[in-house]
């Protein structure tokens, strides 16, 4: 193999043909209210953890739906589980439970029974 001094860039595209939203499907089984998120961002706006870290629940929910787990794995445990987002959510999504489920899956490798 020859080194030309540059390499082909990896695609930045969210390719829904190759990504899998398995985690999202599991999440829906555990917490059906996740389906009703409308990405309004109220959760992220009210989030205390988001003031100090790059934790952003709106983005996490969206990336989870798109099957892009690696992008939010490093930040999912920055939530303090204070529950403010749940109070603010206009759709009644059980946000706290979602964070707990995702955290467990991504850092303990499974979703608890």
């Amino acid at each position: 193999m020859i080194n030309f001094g540059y390499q082909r860039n990896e695609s930045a595209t969210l390719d829904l043909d190759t990504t899998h939203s398995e985690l999202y499907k599991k999440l829906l089984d555990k917490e059906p209210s996740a389906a009703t998120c409308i990405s309004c961002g109220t959760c992220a706006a009210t989030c205390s953890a988001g003031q100090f870290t790059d934790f952003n629940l709106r983005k996490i929910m969206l990336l989870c739906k798109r099957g892009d787990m690696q992008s939010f794995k490093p930040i999912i445990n920055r939530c303090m589980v204070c529950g403010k987002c749940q109070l603010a959510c206009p759709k009644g999504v059980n946000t706290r439970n979602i964070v707990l489920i995702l955290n467990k899956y991504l850092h303990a490798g499974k979703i608890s029974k």
Partner: protein
Amino acid sequence: MGKISENLNYPKISVVVKNMKSIAIIGSGIAGIEAASRLSKFGHKVYLIEKNSEIGGYVAQWDRLFPSQTEAKTVLNDLIKKLNNRAEVLTNVTVQHCEKKDRQFELVLTDNKHLVVDAILVTTGFDIFRAERKEEYGYGIYENVITSSDLEKMFAENNVVCKNGESPKRLAFVHCVGSRDEKVGNRHCSKVCCATAVKQACEIKELYPSCEVFNLYMDLRMFDRHFEDMYHEAQSKYHVNFIRGRLSEAGENKEHQVIIKTEDTLAGKPLKLTVDLLVLMTGMEPCYLQKTINSKLGLRSDTDGFLSTKNSFTENNLSNADGIFVAGTCTGPKTIPETLADSRAAAGLLNSYLMS
């Protein structure tokens, strides 16, 4: 119940009408039919002029209606039943010539029939945007790209399948095709496509529960009563995927599936997706005959091509010409209930005008 509503809606004005007046209604969609049945009930002579061979307009071509999934033919049949053959329906004709004589209009139709009427109601409605014009979406070229109207026909025929006859495993709806798009000359929102797309998404999931459904939208406009419930159900019950992004292009792979590209604007990333069937939510445009009709009747359209009204708040059933009234989607996109309400208002106004 029928009797009560008849009595409520139509007080015995009809019997007290002494001088029967006549009205020409141009366009026999639901707006024309509803106005015809009201005006004839008031005791006037109504001519219902239709360019096609059948009355009923676009509602006649639809399967079920949002948000209640009521069958379109039920609604249309109710309207036609109420009309009760009281109007003179003239099909396969349009207005060839119009001349105002005192307070009356003399109309010559394309079959050379002459009508003398006391007023005209324009209910010319809309046309569906021709999806071929968004060339990059490949309608008419890629065999699994269809429009929302095509899908309604498939629902009506109970035959929602891809070109190869198989049921779709993945399907996407593209909102705002020919609407909110200055590149095709349509800045306006067509108002009904968002709700239609969500309705059709639910219907697909009802039919094929394992089919993955994606709705690609710019803004979701769930503005009317029960629309938000329908959207909520699409999410909670059917797990329809909503992606905020306008489709940039569609292509076809070797298996004749459609590959679509968009930006997921909420994730901030380009997104690619292969679907078995792509449904284009084609919007509303002014009727293709509107300009011709305007020139014959002396009417004006706004820059969006829909008819101008005298005052968009208080006199939205009056055109710029005396004695010519307007109702329905010829003055801009409307839902079916809005169209019918507008039409009834126009009929009431027309009646007062004719009696004055």
